[in-house]
């Protein structure tokens, strides 16, 4: 059994007067791809943003490698080795692809070996290296967002719905990319697309109404159609 990398314990988050997370408890083991599933508005994005410190947890504990991070500044959390790929990709459109990538490096210098790997994984990034990012297509922007997260060694990458709005061919290439990234990094993937999640995930947690309602292995969930229907009917209906 691999050791726990990230542990959320009874995390509650409010946005203005609204209570969004009502005591989320979740353990992410080190290594592999772990999936957080749930319908729209269930609290998936809020969970990632709370882990990243973009929204402050009102209550509860978030421990990364055993250390409490729930009160830390976002930049300090990032410096612990946690990368975040938001739903809107967080690309800087006015900067070139190269500048977007350089920002994600520790001291502004590329590790040539890693850069070569990124280029091999996402050839479009090399092709459009000097182009401004706003000129990329939706799929290329998503690739840039993921390439940016892997240009440095990270311990954990939080990825929010990477397949949203993408063509099936691009989603397939993303599966390969995620498998490669997962060889050296832990991924916490938020998804609504169950087929994509199923092809990658080792463990799965299902969130609904700001609470974790199921945890287990992805293999078990994939084989249990009754459980899928009970937990995910809304998202499966729209994606399968």
């Amino acid at each position: 059994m691999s050791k726990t990398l990230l542990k959320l314990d009874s995390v509650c988050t409010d946005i203005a007067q609204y209570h969004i997370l009502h005591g989320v408890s979740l353990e992410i083991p080190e290594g592999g791809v772990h999936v957080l599933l749930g319908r729209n508005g269930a609290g998936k994005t809020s969970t990632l943003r709370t882990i990243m410190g973009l929204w402050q947890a009102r209550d509860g504990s978030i421990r990364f490698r055993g250390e409490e991070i729930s009160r830390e500044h976002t930049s300090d959390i990032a410096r612990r080795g946690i990368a975040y790929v938001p739903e809107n990709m967080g690309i800087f459109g006015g900067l070139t692809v190269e500048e977007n990538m350089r920002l994600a490096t520790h001291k502004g210098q590329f590790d040539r070996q890693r850069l070569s790997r990124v280029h091999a994984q996402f050839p479009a990034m090399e092709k459009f290296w000097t182009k401004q990012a706003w000129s990329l297509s939706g799929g290329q922007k998503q690739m840039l967002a993921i390439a940016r997260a892997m240009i440095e060694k990270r311990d954990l990458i939080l990825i929010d719905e990477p397949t949203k709005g993408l063509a099936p061919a691009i989603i397939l290439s993303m599966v390969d990319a995620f498998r490669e990234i997962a060889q050296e990094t832990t991924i916490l993937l938020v998804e609504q697309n169950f087929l994509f999640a199923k092809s990658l995930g080792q463990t799965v947690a299902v969130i609904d109404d700001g609470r974790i309602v199921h945890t287990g292995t992805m293999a078990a969930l994939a084989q249990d159609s009754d459980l899928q229907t009970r937990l995910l009917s809304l998202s499966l209906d729209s994606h399968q």
Partner: protein
Amino acid sequence: MNLIATQIERFGGINLLPVLLAVVALVLIGVPSTWLTLTVAGLAMGMMIFLMASGLSLVFGLMDVLNFGHSAFISFGAFIAASVLAALGSWVGADNILLNIAALFAAISAATLFGLVAGWFFERVIIKPVYRDHLRQILITMGALIVAEQIILAIWGGSPISVPRPNFLSGSIILGDVSIEIYRLFAFGLGLVVFLGLYAVLNRTRIGLLVRAGVENREMVEALGFRIDRLFIGVFMLGSALAAMGGAMWAGYETLITAAIGSEMMIIVFIVIIIGGLGSIEGTLLGALMVGLMGNYVAFLAPKMALASNMLLMMAILLWRPYGLRPAVK
């Protein structure tokens, strides 16, 4: 049609607008010597406005702060420069160009240094408590502006103060039947140097990269491991220092200043950053040059329209490009 658009883009695209404006003005004015005098005056005025506006554009773009107190830095810069030049009267009026330059350098440096320090104080005390709250930003920065103007009145009094120009910047250069004020050439040159410096910092350094990224998406810059709040202070201090420098240059241009010098310029400064596009140094320069040229040409061609000309220019540009000519965020 596409071919024409491609060719225009190839030769500078939207950057050609001031050239187009100048060509149209040449046709309307008809007298090349008058046109050249007005053009140099417009470019010099544009560069001084650029100094005052560039910092505010970055502050707007990066920090999302509506700082109506920006004009206080322009006013203080003008008065501090005037006081330093008055105190160094013998250097200012000397026939020795080195003494002239030393006096000018001292005046501009004092104003800029004040802008840096006052900018730090203003950000910490006035701005920091009201981040992300536009209504309170407007109220508190307007209040700070009123207090600053009263401080100027208390220190320098209500009467207009004359600003001596260093000897080497007085007079004009005569080219045929064209007379060009030396001060205007200097103002243009200084503005150009500042623009090139800012451009180099923003486009060739890591801090510049962070500022440009922060203008687009502050949250993501933090998620990449950078403290954007520390960047805020630096940008605010730089913006305040540039405003004070612009105020010092404007004081030398006007030669007679009052406590309202900053607030009188503020409308033009806002027009410039809106025309140029928030958070963009290139856009601010483009907007400032357009406003400077437009103001001078229209004041000559249709004096009664002079005040309205920049408003009309802003309306026309916003109808064409709602986010300004070169906004930082696309």
